[in-house]
């Protein structure tokens, strides 16, 4: 048995520039483990320890995502081993294509107790892939999970929604997307990084994963989001003077 954690190797829009044609210039961005995914890996590690099983990582993307840097970044965070699923369909992936590739790759693990995922990927900010994956596997898919505990043969799951707190009981495998702060992920140390080099990583390529058929939305246009130009005028002087200026602007706008 194992616990699987899915993560994304992605660029952050915080490091991107939008061009006038609406495409993103990523030349100043570096791919990394998506911002919230270290939380998922750490939550997966805890669960695997509690269950006394392996923690296997899985990421999916076009062939280009596989690199020593990516492997180290993932394996140093507490995975026992790593699957890298590469597929040409992921050059232009939508969430369902990605979920299909992940589902095919997870078929390589004989028995999975749970698949853990992060809240949202840094680039898409949608939080959809784990839940579509759950649909494909026909397992329960739960997002907003803030805690997971082992209770006999079952899993106890806590979540905090917009207006209530829930405890749920799972009697079989499930896909669980954890909240942004479900656990605090430790920063990998030198020892973890060195150990990562010795952990197994397996590439699953298109030939092994099989074809993916999925409808696509066709892009017909694109533009930068209209962002008003703002002056960023610094209110100078002592605090009292800055406050006086701010208040006068607020009053001029008729807001006080």
């Amino acid at each position: 048995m194992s616990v699987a954690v899915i993560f994304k190797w992605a660029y952050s829009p915080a490091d991107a520039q939008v061009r006038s044609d609406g495409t993103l210039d990523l030349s100043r961005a570096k791919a990394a483990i998506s911002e919230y995914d270290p939380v998922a890996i750490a939550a997966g590690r805890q669960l695997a320890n509690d269950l006394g099983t392996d923690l296997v990582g899985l990421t999916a993307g076009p062939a280009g995502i596989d690199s020593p840097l990516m492997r180290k970044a993932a394996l140093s965070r507490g995975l026992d081993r790593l699957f890298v699923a590469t597929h040409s369909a992921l050059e232009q992936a939508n969430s369902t294509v990605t979920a299909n590739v992940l589902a095919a790759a997870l078929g390589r693990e004989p028995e999975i107790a749970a698949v853990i995922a992060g809240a949202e990927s840094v680039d898409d900010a949608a939080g959809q892939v784990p839940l579509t994956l759950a649909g494909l596997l026909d397992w329960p898919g739960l997002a907003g999970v803030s805690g997971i505990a082992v209770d006999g043969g079952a899993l106890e799951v806590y979540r905090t929604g917009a207006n209530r707190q829930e405890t749920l009981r799972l009697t079989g495998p499930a896909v669980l997307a954890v909240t942004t702060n479900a656990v605090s992920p430790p920063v990998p140390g030198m020892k973890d990084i060195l150990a990562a080099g010795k952990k197994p990583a397996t590439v699953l390529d298109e030939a092994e994963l099989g074809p993916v058929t999925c409808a696509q939305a066709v892009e017909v246009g694109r533009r930068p989001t209209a962002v008003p130009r703002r002056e960023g005028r610094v209110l100078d002087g002592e605090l009292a003077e800055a406050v006086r200026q701010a208040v006068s602007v607020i009053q001029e706008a008729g807001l006080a």
Partner: protein
Amino acid sequence: MTTGQVWVIVTDDLIVGNALAVARGLGGPVTALVVGSRQTADRLAPVVSQVRHLAIDQDTPAESCAAGLADLAAAEAPAAVVGNAGATSRALLGAVAARLGGPVLHHVTSAALKDGQISLVRTVGGGLAEVAEAVDVGQAVLAVRGGSDLGEAGATAPVAELAVTSSSAVRLTSAQSINHQAVELGSAKVVVGVGRGMKAQADVAMVRDLAERLGAELACSRPLAEGAEWFGHDRYIGVSGQTIAPDLYLAVGLSGQVQHLSGAHGAKLIIAINNDPDAPVMTNCDLAMVADLYQAVPALTAALGGASGVSESGGK
């Protein structure tokens, strides 16, 4: 030309105002598929053409109906399936998309029927860009964020009870309501937003005083809602949260990452208070006050207090 049935999936969070608006834009009759309480189903009856209610037991989370709902979608082939981006809704939309073999498109802002296809606009890249896309009728699964205003009430639609199979692999063993006062930031005229520059929950009181002085709604960055839980989840602004368009957004002790500010572009005036002159918010605002919020906020509150008494403008 009409599209045939448009489904809107509704869970008990009821934040489906914008999803309903997008669904109505498709021109066909809108059917609400309510996976939740009968009360929620009844709330939808005046604003859609038809309500179908998937009643769930006390100990069953709505997610256990995901496969049943997907079966129904496969059997009835609605033109489009729309929902919000809440945790439960995403699980239901994901199951439907998995079954239909198409994507769930997120951050959708509008959709229309054009040349026999559904054409839609959505934001991508953390809000940096907008794309227009076309997707086949029958393959459109759309996630639309926000909106507690369900639209104008019309004739009360019939509510049909519907039975779908539900999985027994997950059970709800306990549930507790959280008492966060619901808020509609989208229509607020003045918003005061705080971030992690605020060090303790007790300090919310200080910012609330300022907000009250301005007649403003209080809002925050994501970590203060999801994580610190100092605010309800409907109070954070950004790509994953609320979109605001006030006359004034006062951004206090928040760095202004793209994911946050993309929810605030609609503000007429942004004033930022931050002790770091290099924080991204300082170049993405109209007025930047480089100051410790613990000094600036009380000073501003006091100054506004004096001002409001003698104000000639009286507010709009």
